């Protein structure tokens, strides 16, 4: 049992620590050679590829890819923990997009003479940098630049829109047990979600903790007393009937200002948690929740 836990911790590698390497994606071979066949093992990168016009070059994706809808038709070749090396090699890719912790896979691909684009999740700046690097690696430099500027403009627009309003001390929840406030995971002071929250006009109530994720106890939640609470759920855990029940859980912590002023919001959708081209939408959704007056 303990072994199971340890194994799972090692393999999922979550949560990332603040001192992890910065999310500079690195290209093993950036000589601009023709890249006709691309395999992406990382959903965020798959989205970026399609966004910068490299979609037609993608020949296979990871098990968890679901956006854009075009990926539905593509073969699946495993994911972070279980990449199917044989199938990857059999598909004869020119470029494979891996996650930075997949060192064994990267070594195997290097031995096979296949170019690797190694990536790690990072904040908003990391997404824009990765987008440009990916453009350079796939021959779509101009489109990637355009896309990066477009996203930056979206983010700037959101930021400008909420600027006049006071910034609520915000708790951003991205996972917890259903029907209980236990085993809650919230955004700490670094990473993508923290950046999005800042842009959307919130001050992270756990901003002082230099980790991507924090697991607050009931006591910590009461003490930190957030003025707004946003729960984001990547998948459809929340049907309408459940939503009321989940919201009512917060009533037990009635001294929290967000609960008393009814500023507990639920947002749903994978775009909220994927550090990719849809982050402008994520920032706007969060801003609408935190500052409805700014969008009237």
């Amino acid at each position, binding site marked *: *049992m303990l072994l199971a836990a340890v194994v799972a911790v090692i393999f999922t590698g979550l949560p990332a620590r603040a001192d992890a390497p910065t999310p500079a994606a690195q290209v093993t071979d950036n000589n601009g050679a023709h890249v006709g066949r691309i395999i992406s093992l990382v959903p965020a990168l798959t989205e970026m590829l399609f966004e910068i016009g490299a979609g037609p070059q993608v020949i296979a994706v990871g098990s968890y890819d679901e956006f854009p809808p075009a990926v539905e038709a593509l073969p699946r070749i495993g994911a972070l923990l279980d990449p199917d090396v044989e199938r990857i090699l059999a598909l004869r890719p020119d470029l494979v997009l891996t996650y930075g912790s997949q060192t064994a896979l990267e070594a195997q691909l290097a031995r096979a003479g296949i170019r690797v684009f190694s990536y790690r999740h990072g904040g908003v700046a990391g997404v824009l940098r990765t987008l440009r690097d990916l453009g350079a690696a796939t021959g779509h430099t101009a489109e990637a630049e355009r896309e990066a500027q477009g996203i930056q403009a979206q983010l700037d627009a959101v930021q400008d829109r909420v600027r006049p309003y006071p910034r609520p001390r915000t708790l951003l929840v991205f996972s917890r047990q259903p029907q209980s406030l236990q085993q809650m995971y919230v955004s700490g002071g670094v990473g993508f979600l923290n950046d999005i929250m800042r842009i959307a006009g919130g001050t992270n109530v756990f901003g002082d903790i230099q980790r991507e994720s924090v697991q607050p106890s009931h006591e*910590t939640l009461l003490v930190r007393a957030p003025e707004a609470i946003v729960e984001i759920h990547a998948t459809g855990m929340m049907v309408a009937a459940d939503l009321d029940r989940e919201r009512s859980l917060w009533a037990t912590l009635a001294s929290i200002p967000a609960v008393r002023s009814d500023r507990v919001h639920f947002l749903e959708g994978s775009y909220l948690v994927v550090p990719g081209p849809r982050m402008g939408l994520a920032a706007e959704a969060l801003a609408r929740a935190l500052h409805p007056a700014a969008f009237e």
Partner: protein
Amino acid sequence: MCLLAPLVGSTSISLARVFDRSIPFTDNIDAQIFFIARLPRVLAGAIVGAALASAGVVLQALLRNPLATPFTLGVSAGAALGAILAISFGAAITLGPLSPVPLASLAGAFMAAAIVYAMATRPGRPISTSVLLLAGVTLNSFFSALILFVQYMGDFAETYRTVRWLMGDLDVGGFGPILGALPLIVVAFVIFAMLSSSLNVLSVGTDTAATRGVDVARTQRLAFISSALATSAAVSLAGPIGFVGIVVPHLVRLMAGVDHRIVLPAAAFFGAAFLVACDLVARTVLAPVEVPVGVVTALLGGPFFLWLLIRKG
């Protein structure tokens, strides 16, 4: 320990304010911290610690094996499988104060206990302790494999939540979950109290016990059922918190001898105090970040137990 622990935490609160009736409860942060965060947590720690330590004592006597723990018989693995299925598939069934995850873990624990019990009992004959042990260990491995499979197929957020559940957590956030587990634990403790003198004879050997007029089969069954009840309730409340159930019984025996009439209540009290103390460390040492309590029990208890072994050896 149980009186002192609610007063200490990652923040300091004023007791005067906690009990100040002139402030409405919804406005009184100190009272909310005390009654919603700390008191349930300390109570949960005491109940779980007492249950696991006593179940460990009973099972070590029943199996006549010093390595037996409340988790040896597959009950906790069954509980874990139930919990992890509930987390991974987002079950939505509730029963009274029990939310889906504790409910599913209770169901899993009962299922595992029923399987092991059915394997090891024959009408009118003593339980085969070797079958009990082997069935338990096999069931543990089998369920652990299923757990790994479910985790492997699940997505990352769920997998990490299941891993976190396996580390144990006493922050139950209210009295509801405790009330859900309490009836089972009360029944288990009543049976423990009835068994303590028969366990003395039983731990010498079943033949000796039979010649001294102990109904061996009945004692064994009650011992198994009561310890399975206590373990199921404890694990469904707080996850499989390790170390308490194996080491507290030995610590108590090192200090208080082998008479179960003393060892059992002593283990219950010591287990409660030990787990409450470990949780106190867990919630304060790195505050505002918490350490999983299952990590603390082994990190604090391990060296202490080794030290005691050396000193007494």
